[in-house]
C-alpha cells in the first residue's frame, strides 16, 4: 500500500493557512502577559493578512486539496465579508466585558476559529468539509455567546444555541447521509453526477435528503420556521459577537447554501425551488411581524435578520447567476448596515444603563449625532430606502426574482419591507423625534445588579466604536449611490 500525499497548492490555500497560524499565535499570546495588550492588534493583523491573500487570489478559481475546497469569486467575496465583520467585531470587543471574562487570547482565538470555519465553509465542496466547516464555525460561536459568564442571559443564549444548533447539525448530517446514499459520493460534483446518472432523480431518498440539508442550512441562515434561536441568541450574546454572528454566519451559510443547492442539487432544482420560495415567504412574514413592537434593539435586529434572510433566500430560489450576484451584494450591504447598527448598540450599552433597550437611543440625535447618523442610515438601509445599499440590494434581488419568474416572491419582499418600516423607523423616531411615550422608568438592568456591566460615559466618543459605525454607514451610502464602483 503506497501513500500519495495529495497535491496542495499552498498559494491558493494560503488564506486558510494564514488564519490557522494567526489563530495559534493569538492563542499563545494570551498566555504571556506582556503580549496580552497586543492581541486585538494581532487578530486584526491576521484578518488583514488573510483578506490580502484572498484578494490576491481574486479571479483565479481552482480546486484545492483533492477537491475539498474550491476558491473562487463567490468564496472570496463571502470570506471577505466574514473577515470584515470579524475585524469590526474585534474593534467592538475592545473593553468588552466578555473579552475579559474569557481571556483575550481565548476570545480572539475562538473568533478567528469561527472565521476559519466560515472561510472553509465558503470554499467547501464536499460534504465532509462542509460539515466540518459548519461545525468549526458554530462551536466557537456557542462558546462566544456564553462568554459573558456573569450574565445569565449570555449563558442561556449559549445553551440554547448549542442545543438547537446541534439539532440542526444532526438533521443536516442525516440529510447528507441520505444524499451520500443516493448518489454514492460526498463531493458536490459527484452528488450532482450521481443524482443525474443513477436514475434517482426525484427519488424520495434524495428528496428527503434535500429536505434535511435544507433544514440544516435554513437553521444556520435563520430562515423561519427554523429561526427561533435567532432573537434569543442575538439578545443574549455579547453585542460584538451578535454583530459578528448576525452577518458572518449568514454570509458563510448562504455561500455554502448556494454552492450546495446550485451545484450539488442542481438536477433537482424544480423540486426544491418552490419549497425554498415558500420558506422565504414565511421568513419574510414571520421576521417582519415578529420584530414589531420589540424593545430590545438586538432582538429587533434578530427578527429583522430573519426577514432579511428571507429576502436573500429569494436570490437562491431562482438559481441563476443574477440571483447569486444579488445575494453577494445583498450580504455585503447587509454586513455594512448591521455593523453600523451593532457598533451603535455596543456604544450605547456601555454608555447608558439601558442596555440594548430602545430607550438607550432615545434622543441620540441631539446627544450623539456621530452615533445617531450611522444608526439612522443603517435603519433606513435595512428598510430598503433609496440612496442606501439596502435599496440597491433589494433591487438586485427583485430583478433576479422577476427574471426567474418568481414575481410573487418579489411582491412579498415589497410587502415585507413595508411592514419592516414600522419597526426600523421606530428606532429612527426614538433617536430624532420627541418621545411618544415616557422612557422606561427603570433601566433594563438596574445599576446595582451584579450582572450590570460598568458604565463608560465616554463610550459614545471612543474612536474604536464611532469609527466603525461611521465607516459602515458611509459604506452603506456609498454602495447605495455607486453600486458598481
Amino acid at each position, binding site marked *: 500500500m503506497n501513500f500519495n500525499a495529495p497535491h496542495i497548492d499552498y498559494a491558493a490555500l494560503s488564506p486558510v493557512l494564514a488564519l490557522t497560524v494567526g489563530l495559534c499565535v493569538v492563542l499563545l499570546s494570551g498566555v504571556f502577559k506582556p503580549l496580552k495588550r497586543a492581541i486585538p492588534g494581532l487578530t486584526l493583523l491576521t484578518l488583514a493578512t488573510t483578506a490580502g491573500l484572498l484578494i490576491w487570489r481574486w479571479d483565479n478559481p481552482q480546486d484545492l486539496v483533492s477537491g475539498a475546497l474550491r476558491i473562487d469569486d463567490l468564496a472570496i467575496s463571502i470570506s471577505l465579508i466574514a473577515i470584515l465583520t470579524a475585524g469590526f467585531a474585534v474593534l467592538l470587543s475592545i473593553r468588552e466585558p466578555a473579552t475579559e471574562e474569557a481571556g483575550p487570547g481565548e476570545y480572539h482565538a475562538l473568533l478567528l476559529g469561527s472565521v476559519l470555519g466560515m472561510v472553509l465553509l465558503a470554499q467547501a465542496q464536499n460534504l465532509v468539509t462542509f460539515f466540518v466547516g459548519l461545525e468549526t464555525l458554530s462551536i466557537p460561536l456557542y462558546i462566544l455567546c456564553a462568554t459573558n459568564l456573569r450574565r445569565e442571559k449570555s449563558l442561556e443564549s449559549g445553551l*440554547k444555541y448549542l*442545543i438547537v444548533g446541534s*439539532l440542526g447539525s444532526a438533521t443536516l448530517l442525516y440529510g447528507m447521509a441520505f444524499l451520500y446514499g443516493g448518489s454514492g459520493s460526498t463531493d458536490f460534483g459527484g452528488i450532482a453526477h450521481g443524482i443525474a446518472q443513477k436514475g434517482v432523480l*426525484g427519488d*424520495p431518498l434524495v428528496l428527503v435528503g434535500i429536505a434535511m440539508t435544507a*433544514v440544516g442550512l435554513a437553521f444556520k441562515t435563520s430562515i423561519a*420556521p427554523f429561526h427561533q434561536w435567532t432573537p434569543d441568541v442575538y439578545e443574549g450574546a455579547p453585542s460584538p459577537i451578535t454583530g459578528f454572528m448576525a452577518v458572518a454566519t449568514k454570509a458563510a451559510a448562504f455561500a455554502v447554501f448556494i454552492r450546495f443547492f446550485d451545484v450539488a442539487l442542481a438536477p433537482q432544482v424544480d423540486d426544491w425551488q418552490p419549497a425554498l420560495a415558500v420558506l422565504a415567504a414565511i421568513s419574510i412574514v414571520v421576521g417582519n411581524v415578529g420584530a414589531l413592537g420589540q424593545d430590545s434593539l438586538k432582538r429587533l435586529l434578530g427578527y429583522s435578520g430573519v426577514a432579511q434572510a428571507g429576502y436573500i433566500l429569494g436570490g437562491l430560489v431562482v438559481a441563476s447567476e443574477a440571483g447569486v450576484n444579488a445575494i453577494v451584494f445583498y450580504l455585503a450591504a447587509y454586513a455594512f448596515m448591521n455593523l453600523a447598527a451593532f457598533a451603535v448598540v455596543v456604544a450605547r450599552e456601555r454608555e447608558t444603563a439601558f442596555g440594548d433597550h430602545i430607550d438607550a437611543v432615545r434622543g441620540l440625535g441631539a446627544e450623539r449625532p456621530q452615533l445617531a447618523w450611522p444608526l439612522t442610515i443603517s435603519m433606513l438601509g435595512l428598510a430598503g430606502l433609496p440612496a442606501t445599499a439596502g435599496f440597491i440590494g433589494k433591487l438586485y434581488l427583485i430583478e433576479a426574482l422577476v427574471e426567474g419568474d418568481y414575481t410573487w416572491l418579489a411582491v412579498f419582499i415589497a410587502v415585507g419591507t413595508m411592514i419592516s418600516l414600522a419597526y426600523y423607523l421606530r428606532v429612527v423616531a426614538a433617536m430624532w423625534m420627541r418621545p411618544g411615550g415616557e422612557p422606561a422608568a427603570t433601566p433594563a438592568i438596574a445599576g446595582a445588579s451584579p450582572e450590570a456591566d460598568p458604565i463608560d460615559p465616554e463610550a459614545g466618543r471612543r474612536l474604536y466604536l464611532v469609527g466603525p459605525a461611521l465607516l459602515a454607514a458611509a459604506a452603506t451610502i456609498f454602495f447605495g449611490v455607486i453600486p458598481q464602483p
Partner: protein
Amino acid sequence: MSATSWAWLVLLFPLLGSIAIALGFKALPAKAAGAIGTAAIGLAFLCGVGALIHLLGEAPDARHHASSLWDYASVAGLDIKLGIFVDPLSVFMVLIVTGVSTLIHLYSFGYMQSDEGYHRFFSYLNFFVFSMLLLVLAGNFVLLIVGWAFVGFASYALISFWYRRQTATKAGMKAFVINVVGDIGLVLAAFLIFRELGTFEYSEVFAKAPQVFHTNEWTVTAICLLLLVGAFAKSAQLPFHTWLPDAMEGPTPVSSLIHAATMVTAGVYLIARTHSLFVLAPTAADIAAFVGLATLLVAASIALVMTDLKRAIAYSTMSQIGYMVVGVSIGAYSAGMFHLMTHAFFKALLFMAAGSIIAAMANEQNIDKMSGFGKAMRFTSVTMLCGGLALAAFPGTSGFFSKDEILAYASARGGMYLIFTVLGYFGALLTAIYTFRLIFRVLPGKPCPEAQELIDTGHVHHAHPFNPATGEEEDTAVGFPGAEHHIAESSLPMRIAMGVLAFGALFAGLVQVPGVDDMVTKFLDPVFADSPLAAIHPSVAASWFGLAIGAAISLAGIGIAYFLYVARPETPAALQKRFSALHTCLYNKWYFDEAIDFLVVRPALAIGRFANRTFERLVVDGLVTGTEDVFGGGGRLVQLVQSGFVRSYALLLIVGFAGLALYFLLSSS
C-alpha cells in the same frame, strides 16, 4: 380710435380704478378714493359713448367688431383668446352699466362717507363695474364665464361687505354658491357648444349653429337649458332666486347697483346675446319665458306682504326681471332690453331713496315702523315717488312704455303667448299695488319718531348701531357701518345722482314711444336681425291699445293701494286674517328657502357629517388600523410562539422539518 379700442378703454378704467384704490388704501385719503372710483367709471362711460358714436357712424350690418389681446389658453384644439366683441347690444349694455354706475358711485361718495371700509368699498365697486363690463363685452363664452363669475364674486364681496355681521357673510355665501351653480351651467353649456361646434367664439358659434343644429334638436335645447341655469341663477329667477332678498344685507348702493340695476339683469343679456341658439330651441325659449312669468307673479305676490323695505324692493326687482326674461325669450328682444334700461333707472332710484330713509331710521328697515317721511325728507320723497310711478308703470313714465311693449309683443305673437299678455297685466296690477303700498306706508301720514326728529332737529336719528336682521348690537370697528353712518339726502353728490335718475325714470321712456321714435329698437335691430322673431312687430295701434290698458291697470293698482293703505288702513289686517293661509305662504316666500334647505343643504351637510364622523373613522381609518392590527396580531403571535422554551423551539424545528420532508415526499412520486 376703433370701436374695440374704445371698448378696451371702457374695460381699462374701472380695472385701473379698482387696483389703484386697493393698492393705495393707506396712502389715499377717503375722498380721493371715492373720487378716483367715480371718475374711473365716468371715464368708462365716456368711452362707451365714444364706442356708441363710432358704431353709429357705421352701416347697421357692419356694426360688430371682435378684437383680442392675447391667447389666453389655446392648445389641444381649444382656442381661447382674451377677446371682446363689440356690437350694438354690448354697447347698449355698456352705456347702461357705466351710466347707472357713475351715478351710484356718486351716490356712494356721499352715502358711504363715514364708513371705515370706504376704500375697500370703492375698490370692490370699481371691480364690479369692470367685471360687469367684461361680461357684456366678452367675445367668447369662456371670457363670458369669467366676467360672469367676477360679477358673482363682486356681488359676494359687497353683500358681505360688513363682514362682521354673520347675516351678511351668510348671505354672501348663499349668493356666491348659487351663482357658482349658475356658472357650472354656463360651463357645461360651453362644453357642449365646443363639443358640437368646436369653438367658443360668439361669432363663429352663432354663425355655425343654424347649419349644425336642427330646430329643437335636443343638443341645442340642452345647451339653451344649461345657459338658462346660468341666466336664472344670476338673474334670481325661480328656483335660484333665494339669494337675492338675502343679498340686501349689503350696503344700499350695492343693492341699487348690483342687485337691481345691472348684475341681476345679466341673465337677460345672456338670453339676448345667445338668441341665435334660442331661436333654434324654441322649447327652451318657452321654458325660459314661462319661468320668467312664474317668477314675475311669485315675486310680485311676495312683495305684497314684505315688511322689510329693501327686501320688498328686491322682490320687485325679481318680478321686473321676470318681465325682461319673458321679453327676450319670446322674441321681444329690444323691448326686453329697453325694459332692462328703464328698470335700471327707476329701480336704482328706488333703492337710493330707500337707502336714505333707512339711514334716517338708523338702520331700521321695517316699513311698519315708518311713516311721514314725505314731510321729513322732501327730496327723497319726490324722487321715490318718481321711481314708484315708473315702477308702477304710471302713464308716461319710462316703465309704462317699456313694460307695455313686452306685453304688446306677446299679444302680437299671439297664440299661446297671449297668456303672457294677460298674466303680465295681472302682474302689472300687483306691481302697482305693492309699489304704492310702500310709498303710502312710508311717505304720508303722521311722522314716526325718527321722521319727527329729523323734522324737529334737522339731524338724523341716532341709535345704537344694530343688525336689522337679528337685532344684534354691533361694534363700530371696521366691517360695520361706521358710527356716523346716517347720511340722509344731506350730501350733494347723492342729490345729483338721485336727481338724474329721477329724470331718467320719468322720461327715459320717451326714446321708444310706439310709432314715434323707436330709438332703442332701431339701434339694436342689427343684432337681432338673424332672428325670425325679430320681424314680428305689434302694430302701432295695437301698441297704443296695450298702453291704454296698461295705463288703466296701473291707475287701478294705485287706486287699490290708496284704498287699502290710506283710505281704509284697517283693511289689510282684515284681509290678512281672512286669507291667513295665503298670507303665511306669501310671508314665508312660498317656502323656497326651506325647500332648498331640505333638499340640498341638509343632505349635503348630512353626508359631510357622515363622511367625517363615521365613514372616515370606520372605513378609511379602519383600513389603516385594520392592517396595523393584522400585522400587530401576527407579531404578537410570533412572539407568543417565541416562548423562551428551547424545547419548543426544537419542536418547531422538527415540525418544520416534517412539513418540508412531507412536501418533498409528496412531490417525489
